[in-house]
């Protein structure tokens, strides 16, 4: 799609491509490209290199390290990052809490947190979801009761991704239980080393430990850790959730994965040739390629409108989320199916040892990734929520 870009945009893309491929250690990018799990250190390393070059938080205000880029440039920044399999900056830091502090927090709060957040000196966790507040987030019950210059926090959060690494957690808490549910919520920052904070791992069916429950038992939080005004947290949360919706389609990453499925199929033998020659398999791959192109063109069309001046969030981004997440799931499925009967075991290493043939490429990550990817149609506004938005906002139903 390079041909759609202007000469300047193309040069910018070239510059990003060059940067990612020379400055981010190849071993990290190899890990991402082959679906290996990243360590905390890997992610910190990558983000610090990005940050040192001004590429960790380009969408933040310039004052806090952001770049004055067009929507197309931001798209290129992200797309090229995914195409180069660069470990992404931690979204909890750069897309969530950072913009909220920058936009709604005091100057003092910004100085205290933003540089460290951009540089991943602080690892942020997200404390939004609760066991009984999933899609209906505003019904959350974790309470923060003011007592002198502190809040006393009690309750439970869940689905806290990578919470095991968390230094701090940004929370939605109920500060006023008497009013309409959205009106009594505040946005609070909590040091996870505070007494009374307990993190409990949730084991997932992909065999890994990606998410956690976080319990709060009379946790004392200084009032200066409140972002913005008390009881205005829902506004900040909506701002946060509406941020960067276009990036959620993960087109670059899907391209890398689909290219991978195709490459593996080309080396997978069948009775009559390779799996890539198999008519039904290749038709399935080809349809996914056409869909991915449609997704990308849709993203570019939306960007083009933004570039042309409109600044409002586009409800069509719900189409990107709905379709992009489904496509990620479909691609994760075909990566399993490439493996055939060798895609059914959970293994930690392609090397079986004992003189046995190594397992095929993708055998380690495809199946866990398939199960893990089930989340993408659930989180960040489930497919059902997106369909609701489309039918209401775009069709008037």
């Amino acid at each position: 799609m390079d041909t759609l870009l202007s000469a300047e945009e193309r040069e910018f893309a070239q510059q990003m491509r060059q940067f990612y491929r020379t400055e981010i250690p190849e071993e990290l990018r190899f890990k991402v490209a082959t679906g290996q799990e990243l360590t905390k250190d890997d992610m910190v390393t990558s983000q610090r290199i990005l940050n040192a070059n001004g590429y960790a938080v380009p969408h933040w205000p310039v004052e806090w390290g952001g770049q004055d880029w067009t929507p197309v440039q931001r798209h290129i920044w992200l797309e090229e990052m995914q195409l180069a399999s660069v470990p992404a900056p931690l979204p909890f830091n750069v897309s969530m809490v950072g913009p909220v502090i920058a936009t709604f927090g005091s100057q003092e709060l910004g100085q205290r947190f933003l540089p460290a957040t951009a540089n991943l000196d602080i690892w942020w966790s997200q404390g939004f979801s609760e066991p009984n507040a999933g899609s209906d987030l505003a019904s959350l019950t974790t309470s923060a009761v003011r007592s002198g210059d502190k809040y006393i926090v009690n309750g439970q959060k869940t689905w806290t991704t990578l919470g095991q690494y968390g230094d701090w957690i940004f929370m939605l808490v109920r500060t006023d239980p008497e009013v309409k549910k959205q009106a009594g919520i505040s946005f609070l920052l909590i040091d996870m080393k505070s007494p009374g904070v307990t993190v409990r791992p949730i084991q997932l069916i992909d065999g890994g430990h990606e998410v956690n429950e976080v319990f709060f038992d009379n946790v004392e939080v200084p009032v200066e850790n409140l972002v913005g005004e008390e009881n205005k947290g829902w506004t900040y949360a909506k701002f946060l959730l509406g941020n960067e919706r276009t990036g959620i389609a993960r087109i670059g990453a899907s391209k890398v994965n689909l290219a991978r499925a195709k490459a593996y199929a080309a080396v997978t033998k069948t009775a009559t040739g390779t799996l890539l020659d198999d008519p039904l398999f290749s038709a399935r791959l080809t349809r996914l390629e056409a869909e991915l192109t449609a997704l990308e063109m849709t993203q570019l069309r939306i960007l083009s409108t933004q570039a042309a001046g409109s600044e409002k969030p586009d409800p069509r981004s719900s189409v990107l989320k709905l379709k992009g997440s489904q496509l990620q799931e479909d691609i994760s499925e075909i990566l399993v199916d490439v493996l055939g009967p060798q895609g059914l075991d959970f293994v930690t290493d392609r090397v079986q040892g004992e003189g046995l043939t190594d397992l095929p490429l993708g055998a380690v990550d495809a199946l866990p990734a398939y199960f893990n990817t089930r989340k993408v149609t659930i989180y960040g506004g489930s497919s059902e929520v997106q369909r609701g938005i489309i039918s209401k906002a775009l069709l008037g139903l």
Partner: protein
Amino acid sequence: MDLELNDIQQELASTLGKYLRTEYDTAARDAILASDEGISREKWQQFAEMGLTGLTIPEGYGGAEMTFAEVAVVLEAFGRSLVLEPFVATAVLGANAVLLAGSEEQKQAILPGVAEGQTFLAVAALEPGQRYALAQPSTTATAAGDGVTLSGEKNGVLGGDVADHFIVTAVENGELGLFLVAADAAGLTRVAHRQADGLGSASLRFADTPAQRLNAADARAVLDEVVDLGNAAIMAEAVGAMEASLTMTAEYLKTREQFGAPIGANQALQHRAADLYADLEYARSMALFARLAVTAEGEGAEKDRHRDVIAAKIVVDSTSRHVAQESIQMHGGIGMTMEYPIGHYAKRLTVISRTFDDADSLTAELAQIGGLIEPHAADLS
């Protein structure tokens, strides 16, 4: 990056849209559909006056010398109003075939009439028993004086019912060629048909029919380009038709009451309508993708053109089927009646999704030429 319509295109879309809404409403269209020819020569004349019939014809031949981007704008509007006149047959397929393959003399002879709205064209390439294959017709051309005579049979000739000239594929001395045949040529038999969507087509038989060679360029290359243009054109038309279908369906869901509430209050229908919307966005994106492919210039553009067009058509075809079927289903019985417009849209979409090939064959073809993405895995060198 700018994918929006430019000012000229916006003006074209707006003017034409206004014209069609007033002059080509359901009643006007129903009357044209019920007429003997199934088209309005008066409307065609008006299209000519608006510069549409010669839209991409160079000024030297009396045309407006615009690009395919404007053709797409016109066809999206035509799709929205289900225009019956043979615009794709004449102004896209026919005019481009003559433009690409005709001699200066032939262009002078044919194109001004097209631009003036006096001449209809049709490309005759499909043959009985050949399905969608175009490369090896059994129609033959034999040298005769300055020109040739043709023998053979064609079918599915879009716009062939009213065409004044045909551009015909035939094999001469083992080579594919394009030939120009006048509708009143000796030995030419024409049987007119109507497609399900009301558009005219024809079957043709040639028995030593005199014809001129159209050989200013390689016939295969011209045929491929013309079909790619035709595909890109009907994709734009499909987008217009789908947009109208979805608007109409959403409106119906909001107004039709059952069990004391609008049926659009049913969440199951809301979600299915949302899926239609999302699919339509895909189709719109891919129609644009095809439009960009056929207007692209520079290195590799020709090679990529066909690949991109068929990739686009795979998406547009399946979306067209989806929208056509769901629009009727959501309307219920009334969606199956000729009195109500939605069924007419479904019929046009049903035809478009099988014109110039269908999604399954295109999928196989795209796979065969390597698809859109290079195989690559970091752990595979």
